[in-house]
């Protein structure tokens, strides 16, 4: 009873989503978001009408004004600097716009323009000193803070009277100050537009990426040729301009040339930025964080004010919350990847049929022998990780290696070799089309082809994103094997969407249906996912009817058939259900049957572990990867089977001396060529009594 419940729980509860959600980049902001939600909740309990339209409207208006400055200082923080002078720039711009509107009675647009320009100019003083003269940001902006404040105090004495004694004649001005559009305050609209623009700039436009690059590592940014000085200077200009924008809305609302305008603003703004989670060290930050920080600060000050807390206590509370929030955020920032690591591996319940008792018996279909002991080696020690091998019509041998190259060995003795093409990644399954173009599945990159002129071209590296998947599965993580169909389309397998190629052991431990089979149509150049939720689909080969493919599901130890055409299109049936090992590549044999590489043998202990997801999850958490149970890929064999699922022949190397690990084999003109992804050699064995003119690839055109 408990076992059934446990089995159902592991089958249907989507606990793989926890880890997947955690590794999303936007999860970084989860701490400030939590603080914000907590603040709102707390104050709405304590104060009546905290969440009323009037109150919120007022809060959002103030938040927008503050938000402009926070945006500005965020940009400076992202670049790795700091701007303390925003308070004085704010005060000076306040005076400037009030003078323009009240005294000179300029039209609104001109006043706004002049003020923004004024703010930018003031910011450029910082920018030139810090960006071009390489002065220290903290010291310089502190000095400009004091200097600009002094200028403000000097000017204020003179202009305060003229400003207070006249009024601007501009309904738009009043609208900006305390009006609304569609019952949302004007300031909020303006801030929304600017914030959206900044978000798009930071995340999707090149100048924004340059900002993040300079902040992340200034030396590297310089080395790749970015104009670092200009970028830093411009960020201070932006900060000044945004402080000016904030001053405009402040002036429109209050029309007050007060002596202490903007005093203490730099502290509030820095607090908001840090509360939102923007690192002081630079290189990380987002508009969302700035907004969250602003909202938290404003809600806190507003709420504490409404609760009639004395000013000192209010500041102490603010400071304490800042400390706690900052500490929590730093902890989360540093440890999120650890949480992801712990929670990402979500083993599933995989109940394989029991291994037949007599698999290793001498008279069983899989009886071990030593037929691979006599394998000749090609390229021993010269090639590393040849996962798949293929030969062309001239008998030259091609294989991939783990340095991202396709290597060609020259017929007839295969003693000379050269780099045929350099693709990158790890070339896995290969197939020739009728024109001599080599199609290669490259692990970590996608489906590529090498033309007969040795040009490397991308065929496809993305497919349609599935709607309900948290992971962005439109990218191809592990394209494994392919086959070219008679109508020119290509079907290829993607072994897993949750793990990279070097993490295949973790996928084996999960045993979850993370893989899929993908169809590429060269006529429309569209890539679509044909089959989902397969357990590490690996080898693919065209069936004899030309309407279906046989494919291997490695951890499921089975071979299945999928109809891509004809009356049975879309159906899947099992061909062999209970292999004694993990199947890898499948290729055709000269007599119409199929060769199958079994890359590793099943063991009872591992099969038992696949029925105990909790055991595997605890193992993944408590033990390092080297200590986990792993599928035994140190021993493999080659199996010949027919479409009815009967085993016709088996070739082993029991000692594992000559050919330790097998992932693929290819029959060509009377010989069987063997590849293995953990090997440093290719094997070749003579087959007796087979068609010596047989070539296994290159029958169909693509397109």
């Amino acid at each position: 009873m408990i076992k059934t419940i446990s089995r159902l729980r592991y089958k249907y509860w989507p606990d793989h989503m926890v880890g997947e959600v955690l590794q999303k980049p936007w999860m970084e902001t989860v701490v400030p978001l939590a603080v914000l939600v907590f603040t709102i909740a707390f104050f709405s309990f304590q104060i009546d009408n905290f969440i009323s339209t009037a109150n919120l409207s007022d809060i959002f208006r103030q938040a927008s004004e503050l938000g402009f400055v926070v945006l500005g200082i965020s940009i400076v923080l992202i670049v790795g600097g700091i701007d303390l002078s925003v308070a004085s720039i704010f005060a000076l711009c306040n005076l400037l716009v009030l003078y323009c509107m009240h005294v000179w009675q300029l039209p609104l647009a001109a006043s706004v323009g002049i003020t923004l320009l004024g703010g930018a100019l003031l910011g450029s003083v910082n920018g030139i000193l810090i960006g071009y003269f390489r002065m220290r940001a903290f010291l310089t902006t502190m000095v400009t803070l004091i200097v600009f404040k002094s200028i403000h105090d000097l000017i204020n004495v003179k202009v305060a009277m003229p400003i207070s004694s006249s009024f601007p004649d501009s309904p738009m001005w009043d609208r900006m100050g305390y009006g609304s559009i569609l019952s949302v305050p004007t300031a909020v609209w303006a801030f929304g537009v600017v914030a959206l623009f900044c978000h798009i700039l930071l995340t999707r436009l090149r100048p924004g990426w340059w900002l993040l690059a300079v902040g992340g590592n200034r030396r590297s940014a310089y080395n790749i040729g970015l104009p670092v000085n200009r970028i830093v200077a411009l960020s201070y200009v932006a900060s000044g301009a945004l402080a000016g924008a904030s001053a405009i809305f402040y002036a429109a609302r209050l029309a007050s040339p007060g002596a202490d305008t903007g005093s203490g603003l730099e502290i509030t703004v820095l607090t908001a930025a840090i509360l939102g989670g923007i690192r002081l060290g630079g290189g990380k930050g987002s508009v969302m964080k700035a907004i969250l920080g602003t909202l938290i600060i404003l809600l806190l000050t507003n709420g504490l004010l409404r609760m009639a807390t004395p000013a000192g206590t209010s500041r102490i509370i603010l400071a304490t919350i800042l400390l706690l929030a900052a500490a929590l955020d730093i902890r989360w920032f540093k440890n999120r990847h650890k949480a992801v690591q712990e929670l990402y591996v979500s083993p599933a319940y995989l109940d394989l049929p029991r291994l037949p008792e007599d698999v290793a018996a001498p008279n069983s279909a899989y009886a071990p022998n030593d037929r691979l002991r006599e394998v000749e080696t090609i390229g021993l020690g010269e090639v590393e990780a040849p996962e798949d091998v293929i030969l062309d019509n001239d008998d030259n041998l091609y294989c991939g290696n783990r340095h991202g190259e396709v290597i060609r060995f020259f017929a007839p003795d295969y003693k000379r070799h050269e780099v045929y093409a350099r693709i990158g990644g790890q070339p896995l399954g290969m197939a020739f089309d009728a024109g001599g173009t080599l199609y290669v599945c490259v692990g970590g990159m996608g489906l590529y082809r090498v033309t007969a002129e040795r040009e490397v071209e991308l065929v496809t590296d993305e497919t349609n994103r599935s709607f309900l998947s948290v992971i962005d599965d439109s990218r191809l993580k592990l394209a494994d094997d392919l086959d070219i169909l008679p109508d020119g389309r290509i079907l290829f397998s993607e072994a897993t969407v949750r793990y990279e190629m070097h993490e295949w052991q973790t996928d084996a431990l999960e045993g979850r249906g993370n893989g899929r089979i993908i169809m590429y149509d060269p006529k429309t150049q569209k890539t679509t996912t044909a089959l989902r939720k397969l357990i590490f689909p690996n080898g693919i080969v065209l069936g004899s009817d030309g309407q279906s493919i046989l494919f291997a599901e490695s951890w499921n130890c089975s071979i299945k058939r999928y109809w891509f055409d004809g009356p049975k299109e879309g159906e899947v049936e099992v061909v062999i259900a209970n292999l004694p090992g993990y199947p890898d590549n499948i290729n055709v044999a000269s007599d119409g049957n199929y060769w199958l590489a079994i890359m590793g043998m099943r063991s009872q202990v591992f099969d038992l572990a696949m029925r105990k997801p909790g055991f595997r999850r605890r193992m993944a958490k408590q033990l390092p990867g080297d200590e986990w149970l792993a599928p035994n890929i140190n021993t493999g064999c080659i199996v010949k089977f027919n479409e009815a699922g009967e085993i016709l022949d088996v070739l082993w190397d029991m000692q594992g001396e000559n050919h330790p690990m097998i992932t693929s084999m290819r029959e060509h003109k009377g010989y069987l060529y063997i590849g293995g992804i953990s090997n440093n050699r290719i094997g070749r064995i003579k087959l007796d009594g087979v068609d010596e003119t047989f070539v296994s690839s290159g029958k169909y055109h693509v397109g």
Partner: protein
Amino acid sequence: MAWMKPLFQVENTMLDSLLSWIGSRGNTRGKSLSISVFDGALKPNNLLEEADTLVENAGFSDLVVGAENRLLAACGTAVVEISTAGDLIDVAQFGEAVTALTELADGRLAVGLGDKVVIGAGTGTETTVDTVADRKLTAVTALYAAPDGRLLVCDGSRSYGCEDWAWDLMGKKRDGRLIAIDPKGGDAQVLASGLGYAFGAFASDETGVLVSETWNHRVSQMSDKGVRPAIDRLPGYPSRFAPAPNGGFWLSLFCSRTQLVEFVLKEDDYRSEMMETIDPRYWISPSFGSGKDYLEPLQGGGVKQMGILKPWAPPRSYGLLVRFDANLAPQYSLHSRVGGKNHGICAVAQVGDTLYALAKGSGRILKISIPKTRATLFGEDAA
């Protein structure tokens, strides 16, 4: 003698247990799973793998030096003498497999036959002991002739014979006993019980009576207050002892530890189903020898890359032999690393300058020159 404090200090075991208990609650990362590393005197080498083979026979199970430096071994159901050339000469035949062997000071043989001890077989004064303190002997794993004339007997388990040691380990049993038998009268006295599988005993004037507690990875020492750990947190499963000149001794360890085994020992559901449904040869447990059968479990680090099995991969079997001095401090060690054949060292004997070690994983008795070993490890002068 007993006042020489062992340099291998043992910490407060209560604090240790408390911390382990705390560590095992919740999903903490293995403080309770951590194992000692090979370092210092136990730094790995491949001396056992490179050693010469004296003789090879799958039936060997124990080794001892008798009078006049003759080398005696238990081989299948017989006790044989091994000549310096490696020929086996029959000394005594028994009806069951011989599991332990020693020679008493008066030249009589004492053998363990699984569930009994036979002293003086073939002479007129043959004695058989099969029950001590109302409990039958079940797994006589080791015998030792103490200098004071007593015969020390290790009875490893209450429930399983010598061949089924894996059941005792994975069942988390702690039923080992150390027994002292008076060879003249035949009366037996239990020196210690509740041991984690007694697999070797030793006694000398300098060290006192030592017993190896295999499942607890330690060597315990008998004192007036009972048994207490003397060499703790060994990185392997200690087995039998052999005396060495100057009061020290050799300790053989038949396998080294891996975190996976410690983990499985904590996982009751998985472990019980594994024990019920799978052949013990294929359990997640240490082994005397491995690498021939592809049905054995494999750990991630044991996957071959470019045809090479890395020597520091998690071991299913290992060869380890450590030389201790009279203060119970390790001096140096000989290893056969992962991927080697000479694993499962469970008996050792020193004759003059030559060391003989029994590697049960390969069925070989290895012959090692001690001066050459010391020269390799410490430089030419130390030999």
